[in-house]
């Protein structure tokens, strides 16, 4: 019984320390030093929160770059998260991917057997992946250019400028943040194709 | 050393062993061996299935094949145990026969004797044994001296002296008095003698499992339980995959995976170890002690009798400056003529040899007067014609010379110092006041002792010599013999202290003793070997008795102890390593008919699923009898470092155990196909 009371006491004290003091301390300091990151790296357009730089969004408009498929019940529903968890031998999954490839080929005007970038038809783990590969962006460039009435080369330049390279040359893949790219795209359209002067960049 | 060793192919032994292997199917007996007990249970189950298939229809032939080989697995294991037991018993029986046929002359209260069968003797009975009488039981001489022929027990033909009082009082039943009359107190009731003890140690029913054997058995039982679960869950996994696996096939897989090889041979290995001890004329009073012998890291060895022959011998003469060698040798010879001590005799022998007068009788002149050795004078010699030839300890002789106005020259003192430094005993020889030189007396090592001691070192065993000599002498002998440490000027009670000290440091200590005052130390030592010729007290305190009374026997005991453990370890490794091949035989056999691509697992290219399963189970069964010779003999043991030993055994039994079954199963498969068995 003495030992039980001791167990209870130690548990209570450690709970206060690690369950309350520790997270409150971290929150306090984080909000002080890294307020933007701690709040969710939110992006605002005209004072309104338009999303998080870290969380992908669903894009259907042909004038926007599209992100990866999201396996969530509601695609890119950031109140939830998760992947498809389909195994590689699952025929339902393989069928779905086939349909997606078909759709990508059709919407982007690719040939019947043209290779499709893997990340554009395979769902991410979180269902909220904000990035696509450079290939996946470039494949969409002609479509976006056409929909926006911009030159394809300008679009390509924009994509090029939004490539996030690997840190120190080995940490991470070359990738493009879709939301940021699309925000820059809107900016580009607003400035009538003077892509070179866009202020929306990868920084921020 | 090896005497009437029953060879294992002796037909009578084989016959009883075969009978024994069936008797051991009794679950009450087999229960002692959990691994084989499980095999027996599943054998019963598959047999019942086969029979019911025969009656109600179903695959019969294949199932009965499996059942038969499962039964063989159990029988082979039983056979191994029965054979080991039979050999041990046969060995003990030959010893006992001599004893049971004997009669005894029991001393009655009135001083008369009555003749009764030896077997009706009880502890504390007093018997008289005279010329040509057999000694009726284990006992201790209380009166008299006798020349005893112990060849029936030890195989040694030279008779030995046994006498009351002192350290040679023990006698063993079954030996024979050649001459002399002794009174003996019987120290053991019939059925309680060392021999009876030994017999119970090779009888599987009464045998106590040793600590390491128990630990190993836990591992084997653990593996068995684990494999029961592995095989048991394979059934539902199979069903999920769409494959229904029949019970006999599951059983075959289970028995193949279970450590049946080591499980079947484990009792035989332990029993055979005891057999080997008997072959070395050592009777162990507990299996634990034999195992502990393998772990010993300190041995206490008495110098005399174990390391050296026992007495110092003259090995050289060192003349003083200006003295001819001849003169010294001659003087030494004369001074020792009357000296009947072994040392004196050795001086005479060496001197005669040096003077080339072997065989010739040298007689001093009749008027010569011998001066015998006394503790006060510490020298001996001869006087005639006014000449006083003396030999003795340096200080005593120096005093003798000084009293007569002489002086010991520098060259002699230097020689004395040198000899002492080298561990020898210097004796100075003088002719009145003239110092002639020094006799070099030296302990002579027993033949082969150096090699044995260096083997001990390889085994990681620290050897300690106990001697009454002074430290200088002790150090020299220790260095010459290659002993690690010594205790000089030791009194018997110091042995006990020494053992305790080493044990406190975590060592396991072994010692050999014979005297009554060795008993406390023997009782304290972890491995205590008493000489059969030793006192009853020492034999009772010990956990092993050496019938040959040969002190270097300890080394054999250590090796046998190690061999038992190594054989167990090697066969366990072998048994477990075997499992890999069996998986590759059975798993594809089960699933390939449904998933042909799993054929890539059929690395042995076994012909049909049925032949694959049969081959595996047959291999699993016949490997047991094939390994019986190995487990009875013990795996080859050579003294080398632990690392080298482990590499060797890992390669042979680990990697070998991995590869061999692939070959064996393939060959059996070819044979099965050839014979159209499946």
């Amino acid at each position, binding site marked *: 019984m003495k030992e039980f009371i001791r167990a209870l006491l130690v548990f209570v004290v*450690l709970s206060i320390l690690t369950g309350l003091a520790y997270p409150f301390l971290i929150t306090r300091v984080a909000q002080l030093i890294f307020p933007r990151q701690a709040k969710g790296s939110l992006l605002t357009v005209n004072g309104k929160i338009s999303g998080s730089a870290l969380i992908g969004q669903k894009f259907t408009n042909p004038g926007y770059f599209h992100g990866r498929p999201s396996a969530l019940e509601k695609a890119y529903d950031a109140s939830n998260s998760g992947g498809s968890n389909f195994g590689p031998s699952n025929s339902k999954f393989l069928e779905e991917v086939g349909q997606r490839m078909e759709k990508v080929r059709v919407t982007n005007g690719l040939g019947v057997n043209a290779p499709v970038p893997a990340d554009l038809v395979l769902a991410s783990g979180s269902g909220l992946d904000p990035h696509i590969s450079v290939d996946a962006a470039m494949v969409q460039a002609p479509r976006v250019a056409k929909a926006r009435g911009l030159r394809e080369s300008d679009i390509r330049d924009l994509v090029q400028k939004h490539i996030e390279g690997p840190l120190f040359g080995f940490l991470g893949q070359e990738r493009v943040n879709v939301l940021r790219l699309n925000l820059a795209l809107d900016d580009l359209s607003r400035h009538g194709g003077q892509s070179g002067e866009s202020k929306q960049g990868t920084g921020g | 050393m090896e005497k009437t060793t029953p060879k294992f192919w002796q037909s009578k032994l084989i016959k009883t062993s075969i009978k024994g292997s069936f008797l051991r199917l009794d679950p009450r007996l087999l229960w002692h061996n959990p691994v084989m007990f499980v095999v027996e249970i599943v054998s019963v189950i598959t047999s019942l299935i086969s029979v019911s298939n025969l009656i109600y229809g179903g695959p019969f032939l294949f199932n009965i094949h499996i059942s038969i080989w499962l039964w063989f697995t159990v029988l082979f294991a039983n056979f191994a145990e029965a054979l080991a037991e039979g050999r041990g018993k046969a060995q003990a029986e030959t010893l006992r026969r001599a004893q049971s046929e004997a009669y005894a002359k029991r001393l009655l209260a009135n001083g008369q004797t009555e003749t009764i069968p030896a077997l009706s003797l009880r502890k504390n009975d007093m018997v008289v044994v005279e010329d040509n009488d057999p000694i009726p039981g284990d006992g201790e001489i209380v009166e008299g001296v006798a020349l005893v022929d112990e060849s029936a027990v030890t195989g040694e033909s030279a008779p030995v002296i046994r006498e009351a009082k002192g350290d040679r009082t023990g006698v063993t039943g079954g030996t024979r008095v050649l001459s002399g009359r002794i009174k003996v107190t019987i120290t053991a009731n019939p059925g309680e003698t060392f021999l009876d003890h030994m017999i119970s140690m090779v009888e599987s029913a009464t045998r106590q499992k040793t600590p390491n054997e128990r630990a190993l058995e836990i591992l084997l039982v653990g593996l068995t339980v684990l494999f029961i679960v592995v095989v048991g*869950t394979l059934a539902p996994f199979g069903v999920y995959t769409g494959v229904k696996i029949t019970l006999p096939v599951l059983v075959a897989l289970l028995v193949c995976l279970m450590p049946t090889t080591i499980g079947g041979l484990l009792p035989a290995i332990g029993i055979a170890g005891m057999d080997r001890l008997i072959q070395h004329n050592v009777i162990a009073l507990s299996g634990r002690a034999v195992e502990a012998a393998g772990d010993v890291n300190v041995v206490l060895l008495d110098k005399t009798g174990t390391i050296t022959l026992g007495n110092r011998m003259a090995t050289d003469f060192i003349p003083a400056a200006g003295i001819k060698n001849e003169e010294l040798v001659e003087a030494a010879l004369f001074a020792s003529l009357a000296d009947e001590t072994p040392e004196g005799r050795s001086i005479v022998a060496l001197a005669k040899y040096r003077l080339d007068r072997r065989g010739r009788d040298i007689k001093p002149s009749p008027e010569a007067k011998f001066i015998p050795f006394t503790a006060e004078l510490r020298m001996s010699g001869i006087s005639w014609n006014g000449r006083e030839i003396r030999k003795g300890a340096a200080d005593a002789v120096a005093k003798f010379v000084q009293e007569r106005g002489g002086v010991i020259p520098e060259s002699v003192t230097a020689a004395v110092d040198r000899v002492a430094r080298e561990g020898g005993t210097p004796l100075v020889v003088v002719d009145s006041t003239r110092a002639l030189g020094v006799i070099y007396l030296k302990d002579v090592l027993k033949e082969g002792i150096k090699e044995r001691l260096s083997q001990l070192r390889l085994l990681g065993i620290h050897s300690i010599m106990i001697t009454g000599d002074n430290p200088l002498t002790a150090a020299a002998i220790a260095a010459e013999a290659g002993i690690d440490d010594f205790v000089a000027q030791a009194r018997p009670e110091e042995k006990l202290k020494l053992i305790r000290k080493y044990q406190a440091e975590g060592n396991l200590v072994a010692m050999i003793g014979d005297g009554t005052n060795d008993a406390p130390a023997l009782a304290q030592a972890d491995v205590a070997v008493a000489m059969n010729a030793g006192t009853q007290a020492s034999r009772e305190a010990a956990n092993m008795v050496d019938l040959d009374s040969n002190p270097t026997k300890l080394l054999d005991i250590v090796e046998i102890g190690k061999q038992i453990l190594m054989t167990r370890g090697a066969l366990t490794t072998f048994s477990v390593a075997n499992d890999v091949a069996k998986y590759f035989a059975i798993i594809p056999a089960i699933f390939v008919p449904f998933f042909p691509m799993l054929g890539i697992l059929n690395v042995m290219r076994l012909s049909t699923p049925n032949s694959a399963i049969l081959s595996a189970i047959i291999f699993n069964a016949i490997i047991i009898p094939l390994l019986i010779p190995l487990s009875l003999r013990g795996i080859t043991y050579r003294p080398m470092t632990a690392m080298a030993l482990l590499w060797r055994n890992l390669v042979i039994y680990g990697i070998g155990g991995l590869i061999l079954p692939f070959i064996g199963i393939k060959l059996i498969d070819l044979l099965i196909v050839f014979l159209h068995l499946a």
Partner: protein
Amino acid sequence: MAKDITYILVFLGVLMLLALPLGHYMAQVFTGRRTFMSFIIRPFESGLYRLCRVNENEEMSWKQYSLAFLLFNAVGFMVLFLLQIVQGRLPLNPMGFGSVRWDTALNTAISFVTNTNWQAYGGETTMSYLTQMVGLTVQNFVSAAVGMAVALPLIRAFTSKLRNTIGNFWVDMTRSVLYVLLPLSIILAMLLVSQGVVQTFAPSVKAQTIEGTEQVIAVGPVASQVAIKELGSNGGGFFNANSSHPFENPTPFSNFLEMLAILLIPAALPFTFGIMVKNRRQGWAIFAAMMILFLVGLGAAFWAEWQGNPILAQSGLGSSTNMEGKEVRFGIGPSVLWGQVTTVTSNGSVNAMHDSMMPLTGLVFMFNMAIGEVIFGGVGVGLIGMLMYAILAIFLAGLMIGRTPEFLGKKLEAREMIMAVIAVIAPAMASLIFAGIAVAIPTGLSSLNNPGPHGLSEILYAFFSAAGNNGSAFAGLNANTVFYNLATGFVMLVGRSATILPALAIAGSLAMKKSVPSSSATFPTASPLFTVLLIGVVLIVGALTFFPALILGPFLEHLLIFAGRTF
């Protein structure tokens, strides 16, 4: 590929650079010596002992130690269970989540107390902030601390002679929290926030997307929990998607840091062991065995994953890379590395969905868990597990050189064998038995997300994960059913207690033995041969136990995919 190799080399280099000093530091902490942190932490430590009536110098027998361990876990279990049931009526619940279902709450309580952190629930849709912090984060700390604490008696037992005490549970555990876990967590949490991991008590953010729809973005006090979830080999994510969620693991650099944190303490503990038993080479020998097994598995997993899905490759996928379930910012290599790092350390966090990886990759991950999480393993318990295998290996080696086996001077006898055998086989048996039951009953099968051999893999993975106290999943399996909640809960308990209690019993019996001096006849356990033997025993025992199951699950699926068959 070259980039991946650079990645791995840099990763392992940095790991060594940090693990060695940490191992040294922990040895100082656990032998009660002053460290450079003492001047801040020591007052807290003494205060805590006073407050909780713990006598710092009191020594416990192994039975008292085990009792303290069990009582402490019982208290933790009850608090966590009740917290989930009543969370709806408690503060810090901005999303207004109600009571958690009883079986889920039971499973979660067991899961977090046993350091498994298997999550049958989705964090952001089930648990209030209070439950996440006071319930889950607390257990992240204390279950890890308990794991480290219980390894210490075994370590100490090798150097103590003829003693019947093995240390003080409260002191060992408190020190683990105060000196090791808490400082490291604070550093890591801040680093993670700088990378974009959220840390706020605000409710979910409502955003107006640029296509004009509303997106609700779940946030919370994430960084503080992620830090300890990685450091303490826990793995229970704040979010359902765990470390693949951008708010838990936003950048390649945060990914690198988190992996480092996962391996850090488990990789440092062999060194701590070496220092504490006064035989550093022994620490290296164990570390080497772990590292080699780690690299072998990693190589196999890489090979398997880079092969990609041949069926998709045939239908014209740009590259055959298997990006299903993976994040673009990480890519294939770091995702496989993460999987290997977490499955060897019993850290259940994922940065990609294991269910969607190639079958043989899954096989490697399953093997890592099934052998009992001994390749580095969970903090503390991983070392214990490896020592159990070491006891088996040394037992065989000892016999083969003709001696009663001894490890660091302590004889291994029947009692040690019973305990080591239980520790090695009980979790394996529990996982196989329950997987066998699950595939045999409709309730078990109805949770499957994938048919065919992959379905078997999902079930096997779940129970291997539970038995190894890992917590990751082939997450397609709907484990939030009464059957799976109870079954995995039970297996988690077996996995945890069958490792810790035998280890404490062995510690008790070793501490009472005298120490045998070593000689040329004793097997030098601080040698490459020992490392080889240890690896051999782990592989052989693992292979023999799991061969049939792994053949019918992942291996068969692999063969079938390459033969073009789907389900």
